[in-house]
């Protein structure tokens, strides 16, 4: 755990000391703020369902920019070998990188709490779906960050890592669309692989434990495969 704390501090400093993080966060909040304002003025409805869907899309588009350099840059600068020869387990390296990026994304989401505060000041929002919506976007972010780390561990090229992350997330998003082309039980598998299928009920206030399980287990799988990749080097 002490190893994790040391590595995490290093990764947090690297993440929050990078202008990329602030650029991504500013773009994220600009698009989100714009959407929130226009949606609120048009619908006058005190909920954040549109915003959560927007966060879902922006996470898929922007998080790859945050994760692409995690391993790819270390490998390009030959610092990965140095890190791997240090007396720390590979799993701690992966976890530290995951937690650092995840903390940044959660920080961006926390800034978006201001929208809920605005709704509360001018209306009487239903806090249940807002809470479950935050749970949904946090689970979703954990999965996309984990996929981003896995892709970054597979390639030296940052652009390729970002493209692979985005491509994988998009494939998961639309996985259910191809289900009718597949024979059973693969069609059921494709339907249940759908990212949006597990995300959508949660933002409306209907939380199935199986939906949370989907995000958590896939994130664990991605982190495991990233670690295995480092172990095998």
């Amino acid at each position, binding site marked *: 755990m002490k190893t994790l704390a040391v590595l995490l501090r290093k990764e947090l400093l690297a993440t929050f000391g990078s*202008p990329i993080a602030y650029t991504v*966060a500013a773009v994220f909040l*600009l698009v989100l703020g714009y959407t*929130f304002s226009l949606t609120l003025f048009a619908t*006058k409805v*005190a909920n954040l369902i549109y915003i959560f869907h927007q966060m879902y899309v922006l996470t898929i588009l922007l998080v790859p920019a945050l994760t692409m350099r995690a391993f790819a840059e270390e490998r390009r600068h030959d610092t990965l070998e140095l890190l791997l020869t240090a007396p720390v387990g590979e799993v701690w390296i992966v976890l530290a990188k995951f937690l650092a990026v995840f903390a940044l994304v959660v920080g961006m989401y926390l800034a978006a709490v201001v929208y809920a505060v605005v709704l509360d000041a001018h209306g009487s929002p239903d806090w249940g779906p807002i809470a479950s919506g935050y749970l949904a976007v946090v689970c979703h972010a954990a999965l996309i960050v984990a996929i981003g780390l896995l892709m970054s561990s597979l390639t030296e090229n940052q652009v390729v890592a970002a493209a692979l992350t985005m491509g994988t997330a998009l494939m998961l998003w639309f996985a259910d669309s191809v289900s009718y082309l597949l024979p059973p039980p693969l069609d059921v598998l494709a339907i249940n692989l759908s990212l949006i299928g597990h995300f959508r009920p949660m933002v409306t206030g*209907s939380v199935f434990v199986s939906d949370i399980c989907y995000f958590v287990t896939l994130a664990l799988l991605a982190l495991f495969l990233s670690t295995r990749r480092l*172990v*095998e080097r």
Partner: protein
Amino acid sequence: MSSEQSEWLDALWFVGCIAALMVMFAAALRLRAYGAGWRRWALRMGVIALALAATLAANVAVYRHDAHLDFTREAAFTPSREAADIVRSLREPVQVVYFYQKGNAAGRAAVTMLELLARLNSNLSFEAVDIDRNPGRAGAFGVQLYNTAVIAAETHRLQVVTTDDREIALGILRALRRRQPVVCFATGHGEYDIDNFEFHTHFEGSHTHSHNSEGMGLVQMQQHGLGRLRRAIEKLGLEPRKAELRPGKSLPQDCAVLVDANPRTPHIPAEADVLRRYFEQGGSYMLLVEPDFAVEPRLADLIADAGARIGEGVIVDPAEHYFTDEQMIAITHYANHPVTRAQALSFYPGARPVEPAPRDGVRAVALFASSARSYIALDRMRYREEAATEPKRAYPLAVAAEGRLSADARPYRMVVVGDADFASNSFFPYLANADIVLAGISWLLHEERLPTLKPPVEVLPLVTLTNAEVRWIFILTAILLPGAVACAGLGVWLWRRR
């Protein structure tokens, strides 16, 4: 095991699966790569395949022991109590196949609700079919519309086109019925028609729309109807039918209930004899009678023998009324009777008193009454002038009675309400009015547990904003917040350049 305990156990499955997965992954991390060439690749692929299989197994296990939490204030994702009660009480297998379109939010919500209902009782099997993906299956069931539930029980198979879990639950009840009770509606005296349009049937004059005493003289009233009540009765699996009281002839044998809703022309004495024979044969009768209608004396005597005395005049209640109309009696408290148990607010636009008249062999209960400050006005237009002299007390508006008219007669049931408008299309859907009249019919059918139908109303939480607030919200969320983050990034960039 209660459903709450079951939810907790299902949540434990989730925790257990995640813990098991983490242990397996931790163990797999200790495997060291060895060999070269295809052996190394085989080991690598084997580990990946095992990890995928373990992840899939964990998801399947949790999906099969899934727990659900509804975070909404309106419990929008929790099956209605009526639907849950019906499903829990199933004693024989029922199959529900729901045909929907995956892209339709209401259809998906209905599928979720049916999945939750199916967990309540193993006798209910449920399958969701996306028509777009499986048109052949829809064709085999004869389904042509999205959001159609095909309900199959041993006795019946029927279709219900809806996204409301209550309507599907009522469809299940209909599919399970061994017989379809007939609810007869009396005709021949200008009663409310059950084949009426379901929307409001006023013709507006120069006067504004009004149901109170001021409006009576000016608003031309077309005949109200019972179309909404008829539709609700059909949904409950009952058969509505018209029936006429004909002197010398008995009512149809299969009339499980006779409803006489707002007769407007006088009965003849012989009709009371027809009704008496119906009572003696164990009939069930509901009379909804408006103020100002002169009840034929022999009929009034029969009703009194059966347990209810119909009074004259209209009740005025200065304390408990709906909006500002003192003749529109609002009821918040009820007697503890199957018709009125656990009912919410209901209202009666212009009601006459109906008192219980118990006697040996007859049990009569006043179902609800006006407040202690109410009085009877004989002239509806000049009721305020009568307020000074009329005695003030609570006046019952409705009576439920049961018993036998004579020792050798069969037991009957009767409900008399001193108002008919509350059940008409104009007022049926509002507050608990539908619940009261449907519960009355259920009691008369000896089916006290039959659920009533009231469509759920979703109210979106809205915000009201001034121009200045709109401007400030935009500046805060679209300019200041991202701007502050951008400035922080600029600061970091400058700091790193030093």
